[in-house]
């Protein structure tokens, strides 16, 4: 702790653990002021909602969304979360925050007053700032429209269940969920989503189709189309192949799907897309929120808004959050995004304010520049985990954490230490760690490459195998079966070595009339 004594310019916000709505209002106002003065955060308006444990479990299980369509897998999540929570194996997250405008933060009723302060600082300001400013969220999510869209999605799915039966809808959603990871556009090609307009457009599409509906068209002879045999390239171009977003491809081109089935695929795809930025910014997002709450809480203590007891309670909980066990402890469970994010943010602030020669050499742009807050804000806005680590993981932090890199080649008997925290290793470790956060390396690269339009219409997919890592056998078979039932015809997935073009493995799924219109 700093040696300068608190100046006590502010009244104490609370003493003891109890809080009421008045306390929360005062806490919010003080935190808001601290966030503005200390860090100059730029946030969406906030909405704080007080909920019970059970409601937190509820929210947790529908992937944290305030409302989502009904499906058994959310029930499964709930059942599991509940068990884990009841056993005390894991506390509930103290907070849940939703990327929407206004930004909604849930706080639990059994939190202490200090926890409520921490949650507000962490979620309502840290995360909120990140959501509003990070380029991925700006590009891919529509904070204004998400709640309306989810409401629409929920209603639409429920209406479909009523019309077509719960089993049919469930089966469709099962299939769509299994392809959810292949349901995002990874590179922007259209303007960002406006989900409210989406909902509008669906309604218009529907109305338009109803207006145009004329049963007579059914009887018009379609004629044989074999005459126009297109060249392979032209066909692919027309289908916009290759296409990595399989759900999108199905929605647009699967021949046998009914309009409502396409709409549900679209809903699942939109939800997947909404969460896409979150999965790429875990370290940064948590790092940003943790760094912000640390700064804000420290300031609150300094200015006398919270007493020493509350600050110690905060420090304890903060320390737990940013703890990073080493790889050889029994409870090691990968790198903790809170820990890594927070350590890197602190490190960047240090480099800006108090750099060593090494830092000057590694980070000529920011070392000694001062103005750490603006540097950080720039970083929060313009990076994602992979690029952030590739750019800002410093040798000093690598040494502090004693990070090392193990190469694991299945064709060899032993693992090899490829790099450790020394001169030769810094860059390699940084590259290897960044790669662990690179979606392109983490998720299999699977694309729709062709459709046999002239023949039996089978769909051809390709998995570009990286480093000889194939897909898991059992799951792939099941997912392909789902895909075949959506597509309506056979599906072939080839796992290809990109270097040689050799097919390493081929999976085939036959279409079954499982998903009927």
């Amino acid at each position: 702790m700093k040696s300068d004594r608190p100046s006590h310019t502010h009244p104490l916000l609370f003493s003891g653990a109890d809080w009421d709505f008045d306390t929360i209002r005062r806490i919010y106002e003080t935190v808001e002021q601290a966030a503005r003065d200390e860090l100059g955060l730029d946030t969406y308006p906030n909405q704080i909602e007080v909920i019970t444990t059970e409601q937190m479990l509820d929210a947790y299980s529908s992937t944290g969304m305030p409302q989502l369509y009904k499906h058994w897998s959310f029930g499964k999540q709930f059942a599991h979360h509940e068990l884990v929570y009841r056993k005390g194996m894991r506390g509930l997250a103290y907070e849940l925050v939703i990327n929407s405008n206004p930004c909604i933060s849930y706080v639990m009723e059994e939190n202490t007053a200090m926890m409520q302060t921490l949650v507000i600082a962490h979620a309502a300001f840290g995360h909120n700032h990140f959501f509003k400013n990070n380029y991925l969220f700006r590009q891919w999510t529509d904070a204004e429209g998400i709640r309306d869209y989810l409401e629409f999605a929920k209603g639409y799915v429920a209406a479909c269940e009523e019309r077509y039966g719960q089993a049919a809808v469930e089966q469709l959603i099962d299939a769509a969920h299994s392809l959810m990871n292949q349901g995002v556009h990874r590179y922007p090609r259209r303007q960002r989503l406006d989900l409210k307009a989406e909902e509008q457009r669906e309604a218009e599409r529907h109305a338009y189709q109803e207006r145009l509906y004329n049963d007579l068209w059914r009887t018009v002879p379609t004629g044989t189309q074999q005459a126009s045999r297109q060249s392979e390239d032209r066909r692919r171009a027309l289908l916009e192949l290759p296409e990595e977003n399989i759900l999108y491809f199905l929605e647009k081109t699967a021949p046998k799907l009914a309009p409502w089935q396409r709409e549900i695929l679209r809903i699942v795809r939109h939800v997947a897309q909404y969460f896409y930025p979150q999965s790429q910014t875990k370290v940064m997002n948590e790092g940003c929120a943790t760094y912000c709450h640390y700064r804000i809480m420290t300031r609150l203590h300094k200015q006398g808004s919270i007493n020493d007891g509350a600050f110690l309670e905060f420090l304890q909980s903060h320390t737990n959050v940013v703890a990073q066990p080493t790889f050889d402890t029994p409870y090691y469970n990968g790198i903790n995004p809170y820990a890594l994010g927070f350590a890197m943010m602190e490190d960047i602030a240090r480099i800006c304010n108090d750099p060593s020669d090494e830092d000057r050499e590694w980070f000529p742009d920011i070392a000694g520049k001062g103005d750490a807050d603006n540097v950080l804000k720039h970083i929060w806005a313009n990076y994602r985990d992979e690029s952030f680590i590739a750019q800002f993981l410093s040798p000093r932090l690598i040494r502090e954490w004693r990070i090392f890199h193990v190469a694991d080649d299945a064709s060899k008997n032993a693992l090899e230490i490829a790099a450790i925290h020394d001169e030769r290793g810094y860059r390699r470790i940084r590259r290897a760690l960044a790669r662990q956060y690179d979606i392109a390396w983490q998720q299999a690269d699977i694309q729709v490459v062709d459709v046999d339009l002239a023949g039996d219409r089978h769909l051809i997919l390709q998995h570009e195998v990286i480093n000889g890592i194939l897909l898991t056998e059992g799951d792939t078979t099941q997912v392909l079966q789902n895909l075949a039932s959506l597509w309506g015809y056979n599906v072939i997935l080839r796992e290809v070595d990109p270097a040689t073009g050799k097919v390493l493995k081929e999976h085939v799924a036959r279409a079954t009339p499982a998903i009927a219109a």
Partner: protein
Amino acid sequence: MYIIDRRLNPGGKSFANRQRFLRRAKALVQRAVRDNFKSRSIKDLDQGGEIGIMRQGVHEPTLRRASSGGQRDHVLPGNKEYLEGDTIPRPNGGGGGSGSQPGQGGDGEDEFRFVLTKEEYLDLFLDDLELPDLAKRRLMDTEAKEIQRAGYSTTGSPASLAIARTMRLSLARRLALRRPSAAEILKLDSEIERLEREGASETELVVLREERERLMRRNRRISYIDPIDLRYRRYEANPKPVAQAVMFCLMDVSGSMSEHMKDLAKRFFALLHLFLTRCYNHVDIVFIRHTDRAEEVDEQTFFYSTETGGTIVSTALEEMLIIMRQRYNPADWNIYVAQASDGDNMGSDSAKAAGLLHDQILPACQYFAYLEVGREEDPMPTGTAPRPSDLWRTYETIAMPEGHFVMRKVWHRREIYPVFRELFRRRGTNVRGGAA
């Protein structure tokens, strides 16, 4: 900024999803529940509990890369001794050792565990069982009406006038319309009287008399109790299905019944009771124990006190018939009887017991289960068929193949539930005689 209190919002948003999940995993959960039952004691039979099912059944597949094979990189914190170029033996299984591969954690777990509530547990546990003959008695049930208070109405019979409520309204109305009170008029009267006595001037009296006249007029116009004040108690008749059952537990507690046998009996009774409570709103239990005489006792005595003496089964049957006549008219009650015994009976009593059972008890009750409990070391070495007991042979003469009298023999704890299931297995195409 808004602060919103959502705590009063209905919770259980996930309830529908949870139901869907259980429906989906039903077969798996059901098997798990049955396995789980084996390790439970009677006391917490009807508690919810933690259940593990195979992950495979509720697995949600995705396209992902395998957790082994190929070339992989692990970046780990906390190096202590390794130098670049060192080799270390692969941790067994070839996987990521201590979970060093993020996003592939789910691989090793083959069970999915969660907690079932009491209701869910019992639902799944007893799901495909049904009470024999439940449907038949149901159809015969005449519905009793139950009278319930349902607020107030402005019309009704004089007998149901709600006086307090009426007076309250009348008082409110009188106050609101400023009806002069009797005291006020009385005061004015006495004032006039006083002035008359003292011979006050006529003009003064006129004013007072007019005032009195005005008050009286007002009094007449605004009645003390007006028809609009009247309130009557309203009653509604709610149809109330007769859904009550009584369960008679008869047990032989003579010297020949060992603790083991009593334990078997108890398990059977407990299951039957649990099952009945699922099917009826209200279940009474009557415990009758007997040696060479029978008595009705409470549960504690029934299971735990020891008694010695001979065995005369008909005493228990007689006792049961007496209680039935006194308290449980077969027209109003669904009657279930479970009898447990080691099969001993005084030779001379058998004919009487059979007669009582056949002529009086079976016609009155829904179901009679006779459970013969054997010693743990029974049955005899393979090859020697155990000799049927006296009671068994007696009862065999009454048992009908499809009747509502059944008898089973049980030696070991583990046989109780299968026997129970066999007895209450849903038969034929009957619709489920679910809870009332």
